[in-house]
C-alpha cells in the first residue's frame, strides 16, 4: 500500500472516530475528497494514445491515416446478415455467454481447418468484445500480481496497461533492425534470441506476441516462432498470440500460428478479430482460442465482467465465416481477396512515401506502415521538450498539414523511445482517394 494511501486511511479512520475534533481540521469537502479515491489498479493508466489522437483527427477535413480502421466498406453480405439477424425476435435477446452457438460452431469449423485439429466450440473458444476484450480476458484470467509478462516492442499499446492493471510487471524487448542494412521491409526487424532468453525469469508467466505485428507489420517466420516456443517450453510459460491481422499477409509470406508448433497448443491463447477479418471494427467482436484448461479461466472473467456479447452481431459474423469457409483457398474468399486488395494499397502508399523522399518500412502483413520522417527535416523546436519527437510531429502534422498518423513511441517503453521517435505509423486500409490525398499533402510538403 502506498504511503499516501496509508496516511489517507489513517486520516479517514481518525475523522470517523473523532468527528467533532475533525470538523475543526477538515471541511466536509476534503473528507469527501479523501473517500473518493480510485482503486490502485488504475494508477498511471489514464494516458491513452487513441483518446488523445482520435479527437484531434476527427475533423472531416483531415486526411486520416491514423487510427486503424477501414474507410473502405465491409463486404455487403455481412451487413445484410446483420440486418437479417436483427429482424429475428430471438436474435435481439441474450445469447450464450461464452459465445453465440452458431458463431462458436463457425469459428470451430474455420479454425479447425486452419489449425488442422479439432477445436471444441464450447470449451476451446470464447467470444469477446473485440480482440481487445480477448486480451483483457486472457490477462485478467491468467496473469496475477507479481507475475512478469514479456512484451515485444513495438507493441499494440494496450498490452502494457492491461498487464499493469493485473498487478504484473511488463518486461519489454524491442525488435531491432538488422545492423548495417537500411530497413526497407518489416522483415529487417528481428528479435535477438539471446536478448529474449535473458528476459525470462522464474516470475515470467507469459509472453505476448503479435503477428502480423502492429505497427511494424512484421510476420514472424516459423523459425522465429520456434525460438519463442522453445523458450516458453523451457521456462514453462504461457504464450498470448495476438493474431488479429492473421489473414492480411502479403505475397511471399505466410502466417504461422505459434499454437500449431509442438508443445504449444496447451500453453497458448490465440486471439482473433471479426473487426479486422471483415473490415467491421465497429462491431467489436473477437475471440480467444485455446485449450480448455486455459479458456475456462477466460470464461470466468467473461461471466464476471460483461457476461455476453451482442447477439445479432455474432449471428452475422457466423454467417460471414460460414460463407468464407466454403471459399477457403479460393481467390474470392474474403480472407484472401482483402489481402490482395490491401497489397495494392500497401504498394501505392510505399510509392507515395518514396516519391516524397522518405523510406517506408514495407510491411509483410497487417495494414500499417512505418516511415522515418527524418528526411522531411521538420523543425519542431517551437513545440517544447516534454514529448517525444514523433508525438510532436504528428500533432503538428494534423494541425498544419491536415494529415493524421500515429506516433510510434506510443507502442514502446521508455527505454526504446529514442530508437523509434523518428517513425510515424500510417494506416493504408483506406480508399484510394484517401491515399492519393495523403500523397498530395506529402508532395506539397515544402510549400507553405
Amino acid at each position, binding site marked *: 500500500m502506498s504511503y499516501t494511501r496509508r496516511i489517507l486511511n489513517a486520516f479517514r479512520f481518525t475523522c470517523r472516530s473523532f468527528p467533532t475534533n475533525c470538523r475543526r481540521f477538515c471541511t466536509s469537502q476534503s473528507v469527501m475528497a479523501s473517500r473518493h479515491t480510485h482503486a490502485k489498479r*488504475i494508477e498511471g493508466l489514464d494516458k491513452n494514445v487513441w483518446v488523445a489522437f482520435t479527437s484531434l483527427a476527427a475533423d472531416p477535413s483531415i486526411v486520416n491515416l491514423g487510427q486503424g480502421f477501414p474507410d473502405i466498406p465491409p463486404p455487403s453480405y455481412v451487413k445484410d446478415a446483420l440486418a437479417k439477424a436483427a429482424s429475428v425476435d430471438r436474435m435481439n435477446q441474450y445469447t450464450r455467454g461464452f459465445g453465440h452457438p452458431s458463431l462458436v460452431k463457425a469459428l470451430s469449423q474455420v479454425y479447425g481447418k486452419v489449425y488442422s485439429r479439432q477445436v471444441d466450440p464450447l470449451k476451446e473458444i470464447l467470444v469477446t468484445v473485440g480482440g481487445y476484450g480477448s486480451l483483457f480476458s486472457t490477462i485478467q484470467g491468467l496473469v496475477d500480481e507479481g507475475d512478469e509478462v514479456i512484451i515485444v516492442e513495438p507493441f499494440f499499446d494496450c498490452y502494457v496497461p492491461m498487464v499493469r492493471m493485473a498487478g504484473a510487471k511488463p518486461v519489454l524487448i524491442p525488435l531491432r533492425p538488422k545492423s548495417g542494412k537500411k530497413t526497407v521491409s518489416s522483415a529487417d526487424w528481428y528479435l535477438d534470441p539471446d536478448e529474449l532468453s535473458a528476459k525470462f525469469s522464474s516470475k515470467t508467466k507469459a509472453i505476448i506476441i503479435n503477428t502480423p505485428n502492429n505497427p511494424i507489420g512484421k510476420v514472424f517466420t516459423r523459425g522465429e516462432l520456434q525460438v519463442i516456443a522453445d523458450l516458453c517450453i523451457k521456462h514453462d510459460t504461457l504464450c498470448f498470440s495476438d493474431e488479429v491481422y492473421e489473414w492480411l499477409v502479403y505475397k511471399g509470406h505466410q502466417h504461422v500460428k505459434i499454437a500449431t508448433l509442438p508443445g504449444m497448443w496447451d*500453453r497458448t491463447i490465440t486471439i482473433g478479430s471479426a473487426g479486422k477479418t471483415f473490415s467491421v471494427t465497429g462491431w467489436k467482436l473477437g475471440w480467444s482460442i485455446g485449450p480448455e484448461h486455459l479458456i475456462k479461466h477466460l470464461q470466468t472473467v467473461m461471466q464476471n465482467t*460483461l457476461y455476453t456479447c451482442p447477439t*445479432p452481431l455474432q449471428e452475422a459474423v457466423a454467417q460471414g465465416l460460414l460463407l468464407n469457409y466454403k471459399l477457403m483457398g479460393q481467390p474470392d474468399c474474403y480472407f484472401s481477396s482483402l489481402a490482395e486488395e490491401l497489397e495494392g494499397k500497401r504498394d501505392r502508399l510505399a510509392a507515395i512515401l518514396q516519391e516524397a523522399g522518405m523510406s517506408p518500412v514495407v510491411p509483410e502483413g497487417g495494414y500499417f506502415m512505418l516511415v522515418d520522417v527524418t528526411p522531411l527535416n521538420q523543425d519542431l523546436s517551437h513545440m517544447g521538450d516534454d514529448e517525444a519527437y514523433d508525438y510532436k510531429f504528428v500533432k503538428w502534422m494534423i494541425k498544419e498539414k491536415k494529415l493524421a498518423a500515429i506516433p510510434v513511441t506510443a507502442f514502446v517503453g521508455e527505454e526504446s523511445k529514442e530508437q523509434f521517435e523518428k517513425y510515424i505509423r500510417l494506416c493504408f486500409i483506406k480508399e484510394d482517394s484517401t491515399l492519393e490525398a495523403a500523397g498530395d499533402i506529402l508532395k506539397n510538403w515544402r510549400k507553405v
Partner: protein
Amino acid sequence: MGIIRILAPYLTLLRPNLVQNHQLIMARRLYASRTIGVDKNVWVEFTQLAADYKAVNLGQGFPDFSPPQFVQDAFCKAVSGGPQMHQYTRAFGHPRLVKSLAKFFSRVVGHEIDPFEDVLVTVGAYQALFCAFQALIDDGDEVIIVEPFFDCYQPMVLMAGGTAVYVPLRPKGGSSVLSSGDWVLSAEELTSKITPRTKAIIINTPNNPLGKVYKVEELQMIADLCIKHDLLCFSDEVYEWLTYDGAKHVKIASLPGMWERTVTVGSAGKTFSATGWKVGWAISSGKLIKHMKIIHQNSVYHCATAAQEAVSHGFDREYELFGTPESYFQQLPAMLHQKRQKLASCLRSVGLQPVMPEGGYFMITDISSVNVDLNDESTKNESYDFRFVKWLIKEKGLATIPVSAFFSPEHSKEFDKYIRFCFVKEDSTLEAAEEILRKWSQKE
C-alpha cells in the same frame, strides 16, 4: 473466503496441472487469483438445463417478444448507414448516444449532465457495474450489498479485492407478505453494517428478483447514511421504466448531496426490450466517471457502433413523447402490468403465494406450501429452492430461477423457499406455463 484465497497458491502447488498428452504445464498455478471463488454462475447452469429439457422458460430475464418497431427500424437504418456505422466510434460512448442520454436524463434527474464527462457507455449495464467496482473498490474495501441482489454484485466485489457485507430486505410483520412493498430495509441493521472500511453501498431499484421499488423515504434513509459516512452509492436502475400500480421510480442521485457520490447504471436492453444488444451506461459526476473510463479503455475500449446509434434514436423519440400515451416507457409497463396480473392469478389458482412486484421483470413465489418428493440424488446437497427448480425443469418442463441464488451464503437458508418467475413473455408462453401448473395441481 479470505483465508481460502491466501492458501490457494499453496494448495494448487500440490496439484500440478496435467494435460491430455501428460505434459506438465505450469507446475505453479495457471489462473489468476482474482478468478478464485467467482467461477460458479447460476445462469450458466440453469440456462443450460432449461435448454436441455426444452422447458417453458420463465427463468432468465429476457423478453420473448420483439423490441418495439421504432428501435428495430433505427437499427436497420444504422446498419445500412454510411461506412462509419461499422467502424470504431468514440470509446466512451458514441457521440450521438451520449448526447441523447445526457439530454434525456438531465430532465429526469433535474441536474445538468455533461454528455462527455458524466456519461460512460458500456457493454450492457453489466459492464457498467464492472467498471464501477474495478475503478472505485480496492483491496480491503467493504461494499454493502442489499439482499436479494442481482447475483453478479458479489463476484464483482470479490474480483475487485473487496469484501461483501450483506443486509437483507425482510418481509415486515410475520404474516404472509403479498407485495414487494412489504419487504423493507431496517435502518438500524443497515447502520450496524457500516465500518471504517465501508466504501460503497449497492442498491437495485426496481429490485431483481423481488420487484421492490424503493420509496423516496427509504432512499433518503440510505442517502443520509451515505452522506454521514461518506460512502459511494452504486444504483442499479436497469428496470427504471417498469413500475406498476402507481409506484414511482425515484433516482437516489437526485436527492441532495447524492449526485457527486452516486453511480447510476442503466440498460438499453431492459429499456427497449433488446437485451441482446448489450448497450448500457453509467451516469455520475465526472469525478467518478473519469476513473471508470480508465477501466473501460483498458478492458473493452469501445462498444459496438450501430447499436449505440439505434439506442440514441430510441431515446430521442422518447424524449419527445415523454409522459404521453405513445411513449414506450408508458406502453411497456402497461403491457407488463397485465402479464404480471395474469401470472399472479395463475400461481394463486394452483395454491402458490406470489409476492406482487411493484416493478421490474420478475415475481417471486413462496413454494413452502408445495409438497413434492424431490427424489433426485444429484441435487441432494443443494438448497431446497435449487432442488425444486431443477425438479420443476426436469419433471414439469417449466424453468424458473431459485431465489436463494440472490442471497448471501449467510442468509440463503432463510430464503430458500422462493422461486423467481419472469413474466416479460408472450402471452402464449405464460399460457403454456399456466397449463403446466394447472395440470400439476389437478394431479395432486
